[in-house]
């Protein structure tokens, strides 16, 4: 096959050229710089940076909290999507619109706001500290912040999948003898499972790299409450470009892997549930 198929419409040259130029300049070349910088290190040096105790501590926090946050979103995001799709109640439309707020809100704003709310003297923090739970400046705070920013991903991915579940199927299952719980387990959940997994992955991906929302609430103590992106920033400020690049490559590899997973999940989901078929 030739490079491109002929077409009536003009403008390929111009738009393709501009697009590739833009992407090269803004994306490819900078990323290449990153990879090359890391590649210029000796293997041993690379491993030393990437697996240093401080780095490992930051991975534990970043990835651990991200998984936990995505997991929490799995449950609550599903619940929220369910209520928005299936129930009618006053204010539903308003709340539906507000789900996208974490998308539109700058991360610094949510960062300081969450910290204030969950601090010892904060609106919610004060009650939690009575129960002995300290949110601000601990890994719990990090998880809370990551949950917030991942929430829209989960809800917006699960909502359309839930809306698509035909009521007929539930009715059919009921006439066949299934109770509400059985219907949920065997009919509804399997149908929305691909969407839930996709949402989980998206939320996870976003959480792992998150910076602004987290650094205010995290406390940033090395090995305890320091996230990987912060570690990278510290290295940069120390002008340890190579160290930063090494850690950056690690995060990049994770990003690519997650992107791949998302694509695969979406293809799997689509294949499983092809609509009315022949």
């Amino acid at each position, binding site marked *: 096959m030739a490079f491109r198929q002929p077409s009536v419409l003009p403008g390929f040259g111009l738009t393709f050229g501009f697009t590739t130029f833009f992407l090269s300049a803004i994306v490819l070349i900078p990323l290449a710089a990153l990879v090359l910088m890391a590649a210029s290190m000796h293997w041993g040096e690379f491993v030393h940076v990437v697996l240093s105790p401080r780095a490992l501590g930051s991975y534990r926090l970043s990835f651990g909290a991200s998984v936990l946050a995505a997991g929490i979103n799995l449950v609550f995001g599903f619940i929220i999507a369910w209520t928005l799709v299936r129930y009618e109640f006053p204010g539903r439309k308003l709340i539906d619109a507000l789900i996208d707020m974490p998308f539109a809100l700058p991360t610094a704003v949510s960062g300081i706001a969450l910290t204030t709310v969950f601090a010892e003297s904060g609106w919610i923090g004060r009650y939690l500290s009575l129960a002995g739970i300290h949110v601000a400046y601990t890994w719990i705070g990090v998880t809370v912040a990551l949950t917030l920013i991942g929430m829209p991903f989960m809800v917006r991915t699960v909502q359309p999948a839930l809306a698509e579940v*035909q009521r*007929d*199927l539930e*009715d*059919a*299952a*009921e*006439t*066949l*003898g*299934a*109770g509400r719980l*059985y219907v949920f387990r*065997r*009919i509804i959940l*399997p*149908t929305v499972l691909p969407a839930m997994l996709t949402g989980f992955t998206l939320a996870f991906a976003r959480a792992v790299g998150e910076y602004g929302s987290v650094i205010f609430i995290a406390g940033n103590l090395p090995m305890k409450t320091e996230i990987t992106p912060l570690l990278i920033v510290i290295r940069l400020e120390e002008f340890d470009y190579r160290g930063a690049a090494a850690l950056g490559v690690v995060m990049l590899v994770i990003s690519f892997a997650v992107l791949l997973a998302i694509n695969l999940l979406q293809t799997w989901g689509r294949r*499983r*549930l*092809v*609509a*009315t*078929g*022949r």
Partner: protein
Amino acid sequence: MSITLDQVTKRYQGVPVVNDVSLDIGDGEFFVLLGPSGSGKSTLLRAIAGLTGVDHGRIALHGRDVTHVAARKRGVGLVFQNYALFRHMSVADNIEFALRVRRMKASERRARRRELLRLVALEGMDQRLPAQLSGGQQQRVAVARALAHKPEVLLLDEPFGALDAKIREELRSTIRQVQRELGITTVLVTHDQQEAFALADRIGVMNLGRLLEMGRPDDLYARPTTRFVATFLGAANLLLVRQNSQGVSLGSDEAGSVAAGTAPVGREREVVAVLRPEEVELAPEQEQLTASYLAHGTVEQVLFGGALELMHVRLGNGSTPRVVRADDRGEAAFIEVTRTQHEQRLFPLTPGQSVAIGARRLHVLPTPLSSFLACGPSEALASAVSRHPLLTELAARMKTRVATRVEPALAAAQALDGDTPNVVGAAVIAAQPGAAKTTEWLLRHGAEEVLILPETCAPPQRVLIHWVDEHARRATLAVSASLLRHVTAEAVYVGILPEDAQVREGRPLGMRALLDARSEAQAVHGLQMRTELHFGDVADELARRLAESPGQLLILGVSDPAVLGERFAALINTTTWPLLVVYRPPDAVRRGGG
């Protein structure tokens, strides 16, 4: 009885979508619920399945009252129009679903699944996914799935609607075969009358939430009792003809009489008769007709239809019988005629030819309301009445016409000499002071029903029925039944006993009368109605009941017109609700149907 429905009503936002439906379906019977969209048939089916609740009435399956039982405990199998197969499960898992819920062992499930697949002719398809099957195959899987748990009743909701004609045929025979083999009581809902004819042991025809008629397909086709069923089950020409003790006279002087079933007793009246297109005979001259002569006409349209030829023949003007069609605009209408190839060869016809028309078989519908006659003392007033929205809507629904008649005598309500022509059809007048006198006048001059319409009134949601004495009972019920087929409203019979009767054994006596009324309404007229018992003066009680809420209509039966002036003058003269007065003199009580 396998399925029993007793006065089942389901309201949606106040409007009855299923209106007092009662029926009995026997073991192993294949029953088809037939009706146009919006007739409530699907809602009724879902109510039997338990997917929707009912506001009134009882549902029993195999003797067990399941009205408040959840769907999953009713032992029904339901097949949907869109198959509703579980997309993420294979055919085998779909079919075994009901068995898995009941925790059957895997080997038993497998055996049953194989058996069902054989039954619907889909052997070997166990591991396919629904997306890999054609529409017809998916529906077969749906049927097998619905039968897996050996339900007592199989319900099908327009199951072939989404399929091509050829596949539909195939599936029809599959269903029939399956049903015969299993002997399972089956209810199928459809709007396709061909399908109903092909499958049903009995058909129930529904419209506007009511079950109009039930019976074997051939009975319903040959002897419908309502306009709707006559025109829904096949093409029909509806004729307004006169019926007297000899039979039906077809209008013109030269016309003969056609025996048409029920032999009436009493004076001549206008009735609606059904003439099926295939029962029309066409010949060059009247003498060559073997059937009774109807009229002369001109061939207007000839359409080739394969085995049959479809024609429109426009009747000449003059004293020909009135043909009523849904889109009647007052001009001389046409009748539909179908002829076989044999008839075409005997007498080929082209558009423009004039022919003599004969009727081989006429079926008179026992409906008492044949047409409406709007009356007023002046041209303007009479035509104003004829354009009343409620009246025009009723006429449209009943597929009948509204004629107008100017009767100056109405203004003065004087008695006229005897050579005024009789009032034909149901008279309609406007509500005003003096309406009672006018009504009495009309009743004495030939009208059997008078509809009094206030200037503005809402479409009725409840119809109150009352007869002043027993002689008017039958006629009132017949008229009420007819009216209620075309109006989405509840029917309530209001029984009223004198005040002091309450003190004596009035109550049980009154209740007895109510029960009798209700069972007669149901058995003889096919009318489902509620009953209430009040004590007091009849006119006052009725007025009070009417004033309780808007959107009501009162049907009042009398056997003596004088009674209207004596007792109901106030009620009639000041009415703000539509009022239908039904009158039958006592000697007419022996006549059937009414």
